[in-house]
């Protein structure tokens, strides 16, 4: 981030920052995730807006000190409304050489770099594949480097604590956290209280960690190693109660909420897969909410069990990632033909095939829309931020039960693991999803495929209902009776009805809202997890005086009714996607407009910077001075 008030030395170093990005990096064993989370929570309590992103190693536990073993956690805090964890860290804490090597490249020029000097020994340098000590060959020039003997200082601080050195060393992350707290003028209490809760049964660990934390703080206070401290004021957040939440947790909560608001018991059929597994883990902990989680033998059984549960009258869910969708597509198609409600959550990862399981991507859109044999339309919704996963889950369930159809919720690895403050809604403020099962036959007898004239949904007559015994299946159905039919006209009619049923959901979704002028030169259109980066980039562009509008699609099928009109209102529509242009293809076909794709397929979220450049490339210069860009 490069907004006016930051720690640019050029501008006289101000005590007050509007926005700062900090990355904690160390070995998997160094507890960086935990350290980052503590800083996040403390800052949240302080009132900053924030956004975080963990970066786990692909390996479970790579050997200590090696490059693949590095684990990092990035947090951005600000005194205003932000949308991403930031492109480039202003502060990097590197607990060992490997952490330095893998993260230095991202650190902002002139950024603060805190190193654990004790770790820069031959062996660790070798593990990090450093020929020579990076501290000696000038590769750290241009950064503000602070070398601290974290290990030694921590051991000293814990001299009196009755622990062996291995256990003492485990506290050095708290020493580092203490330092960061000092630099950013944070209180220690929230973390100390948390330590007391966490180690309630092990007082010695409470003491050790607390001492290390204070020691880190005091170290800065006494040595004055840092000439200056920084303040990031609280942000102007909408009043309310907040909690910091990641996408998969929000998704799980949203599904439980939908279950409660619909009165239908929740059933999840799932098979573990990165990055979707944590939804299963979370829901497995909500049994007291009458949630049934079923870890199936594979994805096929997972979706099929969900279809069986839907037939029985449950709110049926299945969660997976792209490779699992491939396996579920036949089962999803059965739900399309039998017109049963089902929510299929695809937490996308980088493909094709096994691809890069721990990396994010938006490249399963066409798969979920078209990856089934025959004409098989389904609604698709994509959450736009971690907290939005909660609302998107409820909306997916709403569409499923309203139209009696499988619905795909398209999240991704970035939303799944990224977190942001979530303003907590009250239960009764959530949509009412109550459903009525078909209870008895109409006067002209019971017709399983008789439809609601408005939604075109067939009735949901669950087994156990006296007098409504009927058979469904994957063969084409005769209109109304639902009997097997090979009649040509019936097949054409049913094909049209299945499509129309999904289209009609458009009557129940909000029109696409435009942020900025409703018409003009450039519209930046996004979908899914790119909201944060796009919003950030658009705001930066506006700060540079560029006039650009922004809109974000949550419903990808059916599309909002006013979409065509919105798109036609602009000379250029720029569509950034973490794929090679999948949504663009759909919109080009539908509206015959020359949508401009901005594609990045690197297994990582967009950076505001790259989208900003793209915006400038598509807009008239404000003043020739504004940027060196050639506006090609």
């Amino acid at each position, binding site marked *: 981030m490069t907004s006016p008030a930051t720690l640019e030395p050029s501008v006289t170093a101000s005590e007050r920052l509007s926005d700062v990005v900090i990355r904690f990096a160390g070995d998997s064993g160094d507890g960086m995730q935990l350290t980052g989370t503590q800083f996040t929570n403390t800052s949240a309590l302080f009132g900053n807006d924030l956004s975080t992103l963990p970066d786990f190693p692909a390996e479970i536990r790579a050997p200590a000190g090696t490059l693949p073993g590095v684990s990092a956690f990035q947090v951005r805090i600000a005194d205003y409304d932000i949308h991403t964890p930031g492109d480039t860290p202003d502060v990097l804490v590197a607990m060992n050489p490997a952490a330095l090597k893998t993260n230095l490249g991202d650190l902002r020029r002139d950024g603060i770099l805190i190193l654990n000097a004790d770790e820069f020994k031959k062996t660790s340098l070798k593990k990090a594949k450093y020929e020579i000590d990076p501290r000696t060959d000038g590769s750290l020039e241009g950064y503000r480097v602070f070398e601290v003997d974290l290990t030694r200082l921590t051991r000293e601080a814990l001299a009196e604590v009755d622990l062996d050195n291995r256990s003492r060393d485990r506290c050095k992350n708290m020493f580092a956290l203490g330092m960061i707290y000092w630099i950013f003028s944070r209180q220690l209490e929230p973390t100390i209280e948390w330590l007391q809760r966490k180690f309630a049964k092990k007082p010695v660990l409470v003491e050790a960690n607390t001492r290390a934390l204070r020691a880190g703080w005091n170290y800065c206070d006494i040595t004055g190693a840092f000439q200056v401290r920084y303040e990031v004021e609280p942000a*102007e957040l909408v009043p309310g109660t907040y909690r910091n939440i990641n996408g998969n947790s929000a998704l799980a909560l949203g599904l439980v909420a939908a279950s409660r608001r619909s009165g239908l018991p929740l059933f999840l059929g799932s098979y573990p897969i990165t990055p979707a597994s944590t939804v299963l883990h979370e829901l497995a902990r909500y049994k007291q909410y009458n949630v049934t989680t079923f870890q199936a033998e594979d994805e096929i059984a997972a979706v099929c069990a969900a279809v069986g549960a*839907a037939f029985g*009258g449950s709110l049926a869910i299945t969660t997976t990632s792209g490779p699992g969708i491939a396996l579920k597509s036949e089962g999803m198609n059965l739900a399309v033909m039998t017109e049963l409600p089902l929510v299929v959550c695809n937490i996308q990862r980088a493909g094709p095939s096994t691809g890069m399981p721990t990396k994010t991507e938006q490249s399963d859109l066409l798969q979920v829309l078209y990856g089934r044999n025959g004409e098989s339309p389904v609604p698709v919704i994509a959450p736009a931020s971690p907290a939005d996963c909660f609302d998107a889950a409820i909306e997916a369930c709403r569409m499923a039960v309203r139209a009696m159809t499988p619905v795909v919720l398209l999240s991704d690895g970035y939303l799944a693991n990224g977190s942001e403050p979530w303003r907590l809604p009250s239960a009764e403020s959530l949509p009412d999803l109550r459903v009525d099962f078909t209870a008895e036959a109409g006067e002209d007898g019971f017709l399983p495929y008789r439809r609601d004239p408005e939604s075109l949904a067939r009735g949901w007559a669950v087994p156990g209902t006296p007098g409504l015994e009927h058979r469904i299946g994957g*063969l084409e159905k005769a209109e109304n009776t639902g009997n097997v039919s090979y009649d040509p006209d019936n097949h054409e009619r049913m094909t049209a009805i299945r499509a129309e049923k999904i289209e009609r959901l458009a009557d129940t979704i909000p029109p696409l809202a435009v942020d900025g002028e409703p018409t003009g030169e450039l519209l930046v259109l996004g979908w899914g997890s790119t909201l944060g980066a796009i919003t950030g980039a658009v705001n930066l562009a506006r700060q540079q005086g560029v006039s650009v509008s922004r809109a974000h699609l949550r419903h990808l099928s059916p599309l909002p009714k006013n979409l065509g009109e919105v798109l036609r209102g602009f000379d250029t529509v720029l569509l950034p996607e973490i794929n090679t242009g999948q949504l663009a293809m759909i919109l080009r076909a539908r509206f015959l407009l020359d949508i401009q794709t901005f594609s990045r397929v690197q297994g990582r979220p967009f950076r505001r910077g790259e989208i900003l450049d793209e915006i400038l490339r598509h807009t008239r210069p404000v003043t020739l001075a504004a940027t060196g860009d050639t506006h090609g």
Partner: protein
Amino acid sequence: MADAATLTRKDFQSDQDVRWCPGCGDYAILTAVQKLFPGLGLPKEKLVVVSGIGCSSRFPYYMDTYGFHTIHGRAPAIATGLKVTRPDLEVWVVTGDGDALSIGGNHLIHTLRRNVGVKILLFNNRIYGLTKGQYSPTSEVGKRTSSTPVGSIDPPFDPLSLALGAGASFVARSVDVFMPHLTATLERAARHQGTAFVEIYQNCNIFNDKAFAYMTDKANRDAQTVQLRHGEPVVFGGAAQRFGLRLEGFSLRAVPLDGEPGDDILVWDETDPALAALMARCGPPELPTPIGVLHAVERPVFESSVVAQIQHEIEHKGEGSLDDLIHGGDTWTVAESR
């Protein structure tokens, strides 16, 4: 809707005309089930028949209960989702040797392992009927079919051995044309808690006619089949000559009987899985084909444990409130006035 007590076979016949080939063994099995269901003392609406794809899997259309004709091989998985969420329903799965053992093999063994409370009727005609006669995983080696014009080379599964290897709690076998035995066997299955697996030899008179004639023909029946009855000696044969099965070391031998079987003759114990595994391997040419209940033990039923865990959590944590759930974890409040 007639109440459970007064139900008759007719009540379970749907309005759809049956579309199997004339002479197909499936008709007899349909009759057996339609005769059995009224006796279960359950209202019609509590019965659900779930099938995969195949000739046999058209079964649900002909039963006037709730029914689901699903996709190929997946019936056990779909039935599991239904039964786990609706333990109040009686769920019967109808499947074929291709549906259950070829594409559906994994779901079958996992359903048996979990001991989900569903009945699984495997119509074994040792052929793919619906797709016009390719060999199946139960076809004998050397079978010439459209897909194996010079004969198949892979040895068949024995469905009973596979089920036992997967840890099934109820394993039985019967035959389409042995109506009383079939009905009795289905009756036992109906009463079993947990997964009841019943293999039913079924004649496909179009693509694999007389596959089981060696044991179904009146002439050979007595000599070629042995009925297992828990607690009774394992004997077979006709009026002319009766035999008993004797355990010699670890293999079975048929010994002629004169008069009552002596105590060298094996007494059937359906609760011993290893014994069942041995008996599952008993059959032609040397030995008769065992029919009846090979194995039956009660062990925890999957959906009951699922429900128990949920109940337990509710009792100990209390019916969760949605607001509590949403407000869980570390929260902070941004006040109105700033």
